[in-house]
């Protein structure tokens, strides 16, 4: 039997297959944007052939599980080609999603006023109103006017909307009016994708809730159509196993669960990477991981401490606020395709403009002339001209040099020195972003091991680690299918949330108990539908807590079991401690407020081992493929190049060195030694590094309810 993960990205569809013995094989096909299910099946067909099955059906019959990540929701949002979406909202409040709390352009300086105004996903004439009003207490001030609601629905039908959002004030406290309105909308607008804000995010703050629901509806129809097509085609081809979707919160779920909640698929692929990184981290016995995924146009950073994958509810996706809980991945605009340029100050800059996949870097020979990071990597000898993607694409070294020379001239540097500068600039930028993430979380980056994936990650990882004085870097052989790998290491489960806004002194533990019982019952019912027994479901409880008066919450653990005062006190003790850790101070004298109670329900992930490679001694000379000149720190060095497929577990060599894998090139700079582990991870250690912080981490930081 096989298990498969498929990550459909913007350019490539990555497919990883694990056989019964835990051996992984990678397959790649081109993504087919018009109907991504085609690229999906192409990848499976390649895999079937790879395993000697001329018939896809025969192969699929042996596949028990496919876990799927897709960039479709994200790209629909970014490319603004989603559904024609309407909205019915509380009378008097139709502009909440356009006023959007006054946020100007989210990512440019306040001193840049020459920016186009935000265009809402639902234009104003498709935002209609109905009389109704709920209060924060859950009371209904005004019953829903069903006649107005029906008229609004009819009007939206006339206007040909493909999706509708129902968004009412305080619907998190009492969803009755939203429920009634969505029932009417579903009745009037048959074959239309209808979403109510409380169904997506039953949490206070209307702009954030509405915006999230609007993103869900806007991306909903396209993703729904794709998923239904995919399910049908897979069934036609003979697939009888389970298809699970990768969610933005790092969990996986069924297709049926996702279809009404498509916003949960925003960032679906990249959200898997940290789980994979954690699994890889086990190879060197650390649970403190900095996951870096560097692709063609961007890089993603995620900092995992003590094995805890961080989440956030504060993400912006492009110019849209998405407030569901998502794996906290910081994305930066630097990748292999990022273009180098010289600014007004005479400084070299790299990105955010990217050559993308088409024309791509100059060295792709598809008409690009501007210097990209990949061109610099080629000039420096990090990437082989003749073995890019295992030789599938021949790179044009002259075109790369010509492109780089366009910025070399104004800088007054040689082509190689300029390529070095581009390489260092992009690495410094990433190192800077990493430092910012670390500081925000109160971590010292040197206590973490860097795990790198993505096409460009293995080329840049060690240089970034060097800048940050990080002692260890791990590069997995599946770096090029990093997110797909992460999906093997996923938990199956769901996140639940309920708002109960109260001061700690007035909190009724019995009410919290009820909230958790409600969420747990819902979770157990959900899992039962998946055929999972209640006894296999694990719950983790948290609460959003703040000092009275503050506007941002800290998420703290809530003990399992019956909720009594002692349990609440334990959560509060955790809160003070966490606040101090994050912000350097706490205020035990100040009243505390609790707002949202959260539950994460998971089942243990399926057991998962990887088959080891053949063992060898430290001597790696048998795998030496060739030698070539590679530039490090501005100097040319005669550098050994190893064939990744020939390396043996236990092989050791010191930088400078290059390992050529079919899908990527691993660069080991002079200050790092490399050891090949038993599943062919490349474990790089900085010279003289004191490897610290590995293993258990700071036990004190894990205080969970023990203080009471």
């Amino acid at each position: 039997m096989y298990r498969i993960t498929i990550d459909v990205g913007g350019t490539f569809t990555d497919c990883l297959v694990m056989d019964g013995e835990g051996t992984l094989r990678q397959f790649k096909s081109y993504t087919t944007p018009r109907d991504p299910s085609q690229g999906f099946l192409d990848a499976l067909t390649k895999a079937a052939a790879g395993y000697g099955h001329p018939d896809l059906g025969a192969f699929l019959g042996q596949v028990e599980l496919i876990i799927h990540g897709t960039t479709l929701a994200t790209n629909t949002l970014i490319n603004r080609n989603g559904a024609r979406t309407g909205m019915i909202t509380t009378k008097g409040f139709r502009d909440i999603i356009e006023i959007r709390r006054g946020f100007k352009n989210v990512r440019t300086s306040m001193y840049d006023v020459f920016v186009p105004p935000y265009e809402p996903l639902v234009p104003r004439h498709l935002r209609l109103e109905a009389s109704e009003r709920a209060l924060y207490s859950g009371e209904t001030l005004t019953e829903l006017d069903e006649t107005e609601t029906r008229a609004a629905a009819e009007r939206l039908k006339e206007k040909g909307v493909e999706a509708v959002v129902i968004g009412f004030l305080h619907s998190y406290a009492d969803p009755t009016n939203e429920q009634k309105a969505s029932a009417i909308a579903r009745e009037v607008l048959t074959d239309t994708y209808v979403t109510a804000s409380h169904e997506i995010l039953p949490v206070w703050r209307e702009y954030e809730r509405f915006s999230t629901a609007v993103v869900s509806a806007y991306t909903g129809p396209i993703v729904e159509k794709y998923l239904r097509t995919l399910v049908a085609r897979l069934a036609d081809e003979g697939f009888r196993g389970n298809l699970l979707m990768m969610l933005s919160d790092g969990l996986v779920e069924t297709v049926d669960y996702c279809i009404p909640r498509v916003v949960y698929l925003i960032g679906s692929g990249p959200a898997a990477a940290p789980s994979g990184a954690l699994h890889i981290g086990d190879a060197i016995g650390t649970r403190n991981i900095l996951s870096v995924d560097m692709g063609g146009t961007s890089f993603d950073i995620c900092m995992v401490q003590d094995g805890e994958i961080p989440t956030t509810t504060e993400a912006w996706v492009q110019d849209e606020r998405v407030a569901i809980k998502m794996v906290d991945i910081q994305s930066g605009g630097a990748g292999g395709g990022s273009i180098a340029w010289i600014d007004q100050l005479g400084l070299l800059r790299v990105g955010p403009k990217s050559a993308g996949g088409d024309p791509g870097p100059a060295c792709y020979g598809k008409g690009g002339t501007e210097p990209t990071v990949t061109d610099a990597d080629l000039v420096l000898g990090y990437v082989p001209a003749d073995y890019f993607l295992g030789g599938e694409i021949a790179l044009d070294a002259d075109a790369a040099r010509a492109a780089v020379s366009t910025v070399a001239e104004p800088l007054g540097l040689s082509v190689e020195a300029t390529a070095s500068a581009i390489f260092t600039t992009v690495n410094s930028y990433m190192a800077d972003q990493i430092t910012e993430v670390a500081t925000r979380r109160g971590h010292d980056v040197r206590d973490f091991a860097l795990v790198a994936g993505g096409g460009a990650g293995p080329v840049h990882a060690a240089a970034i680690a060097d800048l940050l004085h990080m002692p260890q870097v791990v590069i997995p052989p599946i770096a090029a299918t990093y997110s797909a790998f992460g999906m093997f290491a996923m938990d199956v489960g769901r996140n639940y949330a309920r708002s109960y806004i109260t001061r700690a002194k007035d909190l009724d533990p019995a009410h919290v108990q009820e909230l958790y019982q409600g969420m747990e019952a819902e979770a157990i019912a959900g899992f039962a539908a998946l055929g999972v027994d209640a006894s296999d479901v694990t719950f983790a409880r948290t609460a959003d807590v703040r000092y009275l008066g503050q506007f941002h919450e800290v998420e703290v653990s809530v003990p399992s079991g019956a909720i009594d005062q002692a349990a609440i006190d334990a959560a509060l003790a955790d809160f003070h401690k966490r606040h101090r850790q994050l912000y350097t101070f706490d205020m035990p004298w100040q009243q505390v407020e609790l707002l949202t109670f959260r539950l994460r329900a998971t089942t243990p992930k399926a057991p998962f081992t990887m088959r080891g490679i053949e063992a060898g001694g430290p001597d790696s000379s048998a795998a030496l493929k060739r030698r070539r000149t590679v530039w490090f720190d501005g100097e040319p060095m005669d550098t050994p190049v190893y064939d990744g497929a020939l390396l043996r577990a236990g092989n050791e060599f010191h930088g400078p060195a290059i390992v050529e894998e079919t899908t990527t090139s691993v660069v080991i700079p002079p200050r790092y030694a490399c050891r090949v582990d038993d599943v062919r991870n490349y474990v790089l250690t900085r010279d003289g590094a004191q490897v610290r912080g590995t293993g258990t981490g700071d036990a004190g930081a894990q205080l969970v309810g023990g203080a009471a």
Partner: protein
Amino acid sequence: MTKADRTGAEAVSTGRDIDPITLSTVWHGFQSIGREMRHVIDRTAQNYLIAQLHDMAAGIWDVHGNTIAVPEGPTSMFLSQGFTVKYIMERMGHTLKPGDVILCNDPYKGYCNHLPDWGFFRPVFYQGELLFIVLTRGHQLDTGGAFPGGYFPNGYDIHAEGIMIPPIKVVDQGVERTDVLELIWNNVRWPEGVKIDNYALMAALQVADDRIVALLDKYGRDEVLECVDEMMDRMERSVRTQLAAVPDGTWSGESSTDDDGTVLDEQVTVRCDATIKGDELILDFSRSDGLRKGFVNCTYSSTYSRAVAGSFLYFDSALAEFHNEGSMRAVTVIAPEGSVVNATYPATVGGSPVNVGTQVLEATVNALSKAMPDKAIAGWGRRRGHYIAGIDPRTGERYVQTTTDADGGAGAVFGFDGYEGALGMSGLGSINRGSVEEIEIRFPWRTVKWHFVPDMSGAGKWRGGCGMLWEVENLGGDVGAATGSSDGDLTQPPGALGGEDGPLSRMYIRKGDDVTPARTHRMVQIRTGEILGKVSGGGGGVGDPFERDPERVLKDVIDEMTTIPYAKDVYGVVILDGDPPTLDAEATRALRATRATA
């Protein structure tokens, strides 16, 4: 030295031999420290203005008062704070020790803005040497004085506006001077809340100190200091090059506020004469009105901040986040002492960040838009704030409530309509709006309506962001409201390049159908069950409205942002009513031609 000499000499050769990568890395390091400081404040503060609306700032200076990094925030809070740093260094430099924190809010002894904006300064030492000063500043919930919040008219003098704190150590080598802090907190309302915000601001300083020391550890003292100087010089060179490319000349701009809150209904006007001469920019406010009895007077440092911020908008957008002392060196701000743009003790200044402060920025932009028409910028919708003080019947606790929710949108710029929803030109979009649900949970008020109002923006080839209707109901207890952070009942944000000014705003108190007008810069009473309503004007327009793309006008009509009669009268665009409305292109051409020949 003539200006031409300066282009040729100082600006061009910096003479330092710095690796460009280190330069860029150190520079980004400072930028990111600024953002992290802001993040800590944002996360931990308890005051609506600081944590939600982001009326706060952070920055880094060298010991000579040179501005190194100025992250996002209201312009008045930090661009001039080099003055304060110099003041502190002169008076207290020899007494500073690692771990000290200095508090200051005094506009006259410390170059601050107005009393509620408390600034916390911390010296950053490295190996025993004082190298940098970091600042965090935020609008406090209260600063004492006759009415909460600081934006109230008719103080006898500045002492009536609140506690005045000259630069004073509140933390001595890491040890809190509790007696000093208790004295200060004892003079404000809601000391518990103010205390939290003070700790939040000080925590951010600690974070900055740690991060700067780490940066120095990594690159070394000399290298970091050289990078700082080099970036200032490069920025100066770039700004001067850009100024030199603009033909020399003088352009004038002006803007007025409704009144000074004491002498009622008499407008107060700020006038800016902007001169570009070679590679220098001189912003001269000498023709502005004299010092006022009322609370709208700006200190020089406030005027300086606004004027400099206005000039930044005209420089290369790609450098927008890099501005530093170098950018400021090319700009001279002249404001005569004893005028409304350079207040002298003991004049009241409480309302100046909104009134007169905004006008300084608008007048600057009004003048520079004439100098650089391809970068024309209109004024933004006027602020429509208030401070309401009352007792929450649900808890029996005193509260103060303020808001930015009703403010109109951004002004248009050459090439783009004004940003809908963005507010407050003096914050340039760094200040946010609240949440209906949050306000209802926090305060005994309920929002009744909140939406755009059609035609409430300055028309233009590019129109301003729209104004709004905002109504809130008082659910408990008769309250007083100070409307000092409002403006625009009588005066308008200027349009540019033939674009219209932003419309007038109004405010009222409503009980059923019984509507009583309320005015800016006053104290008003709102009884239980009454509704406070505001209709704000949006931003000004840029360019002739008759040049607006008729398709854009049609889109606005379909979206009910523009009405059909208005489209015809103001834009010369004929729209046929229908479902959907359609454009009568021929009638539009004819109508537009009539005016062209008229």
